């Protein structure tokens, strides 16, 4: 079976991997690069558990063919924290109890980062619509929305 060599940047690191034709970027991230933060909840772009930021845009990695990532800059959940500090979104999710089972959490964090990168001061309504592509079955979204709004405040006004 023919395999394609793909070179790209993931969470600031230059990486490369081999992938079969037709394989999704999600599977390449998980199986070839060991980045298990992105999850497959549906495989059809409906749940957002596989969310990544690719070249500045929020994407479902299950809907992207792995070779399409050639030359791209990708951020996954694993790239949010620095060596000694969590991203404010991660910290606010923890303190705000915004996760229960946690399977959707990486996708929500990425979708929320994509929102705050574009709009650092969103309203509750804007947060709700920005996260409408991410499904959570545990929380009812209340604590997720509150945590994103709190993180926005912290990012705007660093301690």
């Amino acid at each position, binding site marked *: 079976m023919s395999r394609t060599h793909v070179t790209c940047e993931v969470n600031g690191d230059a990486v490369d991997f081999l992938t079969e034709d037709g394989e999704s970027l999600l599977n390449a991230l998980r199986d070839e690069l060991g980045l298990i933060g992105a999850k497959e909840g549906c495989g059809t772009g409906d749940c957002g558990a596989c969310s990544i930021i690719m070249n500045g845009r929020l994407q479902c990695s299950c809907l992207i063919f792995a070779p399409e990532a050639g030359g791209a800059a990708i951020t996954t959940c694993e790239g949010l924290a620095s060596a000694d500090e969590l991203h404010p979104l991660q910290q606010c999710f923890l303190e705000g*109890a915004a996760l229960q*089972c*946690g399977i959707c959490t990486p996708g929500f964090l990425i979708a929320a980062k994509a929102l705050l990168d574009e709009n650092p001061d969103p309203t509750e309504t804007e947060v709700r619509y920005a996260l409408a592509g991410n499904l959570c079955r545990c929380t009812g979204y209340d604590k997720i929305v509150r945590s994103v709004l709190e993180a926005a405040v912290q990012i705007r006004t660093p301690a």
Partner: protein
Amino acid sequence: MSTTEAPASTGTNGNGASGYRWVGTRPVRHDGLDKVAGKARYAADLNLPGMLHGHILRSPHPHARIVSIDTTKAAAMPGVKAVITGADFPEAPPKGATRNLMCTVIARDKVLYSGHAVAAVAASTRREAKAAAEAIEVTYEQLPHVLNIADAMADGAPVIHDNLLTRGVDPRPTEPSNVAARTVYERGDVEQGFGEADIVIEREFSTQAVHQGYIEPHACVVDCDQEGKAVIWASSQGHFMVRSSTATVLGWDTSRIKVIPAEIGGGFGGKTTIYIEPVAALLSTKAGRPVKIVMSREDVFRATGPAPGSIIKMKVGARNDGTITTAKAWLAYENGAFQGIAAMLGCMCVVSAYTLDHLYVEGFDVVLNRPVNVAYRAPSAPAAAFAMDSVVDEIAARLGMDPIDLRLHNCPSQGDPTPYGPKWPMIGLRDCLEAIRDSDHYQTALPDGQGRGVATGFWFNIGEASSATVNLNENGTATVITGSPDIGGSRASMALMAAEELGLDVHLIQPVVGDTEVVGFTDVTEGSRATFATGMAVVEACRDLKTQLRKRAAKTWDCDVEEVEWVDGSAVHGPGEQEPLTLAAITGNAKRTGGPLGATASLNARGAGPAFSVQVADVSVDSETGRVTVERYTTAQDAGTAIHPSYVEGQMQGGVVQGIGWALNEEYIYSDDGNLENPGFLDYRIPVASDLPMIETVIVEVPNPSHPYGVRGVGEVGIVPPLPVLANAVADATGVRISDLPLSPPRVLDALTAAES
């Protein structure tokens, strides 16, 4: 969407008057960092060297005899290492729960629903496995099928199981039917009750099957070795259940199987059973390699869950002063392909929030050609509450009474009989009703153009078997090992209870979910039991440890143990002749006073406190599209004692939103040929963030006297009231009462149009 700014949380923190140091606080959960960093390992996240991928072939027909299966072509395909069919599994007994489990995992002579597992392949890659599975040639003889309760109960209906004789009918039928069981509860004389009532309302309701909708599809990795041992990594609501169920299906001794719990990505009852582990185990045995199976979302919808649809006929009588005296209910619940107890549970729940003199409840469990029901958060209660609390709402409107006052007037208290027999223990229904009545939401006038609905919900809660081991480390920290998977923050709750008992900072306690070989037997997480029952085992182990710690101090001080008390994490000498010894001082010296300190408790938890919830919603209804928008929502729920209030609120909010989905949008839609037409999140639409307002919470605390901290399970009851709450709110907003769920735009629009004409 009601606001642009988030209102402050109305959740109370139970810690106020309790005097507890740790119980009732809100520490960051111990497993949280891994979960926000993307490091937590769910079942699909594990890969082993040499691992193969399994794929399951599923039936395209709802009801068919399997004439033959030819795997020759599949076995010869690239990468294929093993192919199995039902014939590779032990024979199933002719009937009963064991047969149902075995035949759910893989079909034998017949397929009973579209999506039923028929055969499986293990191959080097996912794609090779899928291609080979699709190359298996199955010859079916199609049989007539039944997809809904009415068809399944009709005279002359195709019979699914030719040995299914209805239980609960005297004399027991001699001919098989699709009615698995009839259940009756009665008290007084309903005909007399209706004769004496001033007002009698009779209505018929229907609800549709819905899926639990956990975001993580079922997944496992199984590694079987040449000595017949199997290690299973799986996501489930109970790894001891995975061990025993896998052993049952394979006819293996449980000692051959070790199950390591992966993190679980949602369950809600849907992961209290197994589907794929025995298949992976048999493939692994045959191939001599580890095998991973991950279900697709389509397979999750077609072949797992769901919760049943129902038809409920409800007749209720009341006096003009608002006293509800009499209820007669007829309930039929879908069971799926194998018999279950859905209707029995519905019968037990349907009038539980009311005191009644006269009662006759009759339920029917019905099998049909759909996947077998699995528990979903307070199973059967939501549909039952939908029927009863819709009728109660009509009674309140007819009598001109406030719907909460009416419910308070008919509210059962401790010592009153339950509809199903025993007397109520201490319960918090009245407190929840008063909490909603007094809430800011209920006290705020309804905005113009909106409708308001209230309703109640009940769930039993259960105890069952749990084990815990608590080890004190030499540096004065503790490790708490339990056998309950952490679905939504239970590690933190276990650590909080241990912290309270030992007087140790909760951050010095490491809660661990142990595998089947490191912790004692623990039942599956169901019935909202983990914090209640497993927490009880943690407390018991900690109390044992406190006795040991006092003995060590007594030994150090050369005094009688009765002179030593355990106060705030230290041994204190009663007569005051010694300086207190901290826990760390004792563990640091443990080798010289008798060795390491550890304790294990295993118990059958009794006295799970029943759960009640009362909820209120304001909705608006778009008369042009029929769309219902939830503008404001408040839920009050009796938690007994909230161990970690944030996660209690989370359970309340999550349950409410699942109930909102059930009420407004979610439903299984089958085509006439028996195939599920909406097996994906695009067409099976669960609520998203932009559909909802904040879910305001009021934690009510009526402590459960059977638990050392007063805990009641909080996981389930929140899903019960939203069905009637929203139906009542829509009726209030539009003047049109809709008795068939979901209240989806087309259905609401049709009802509004019909009412106009």
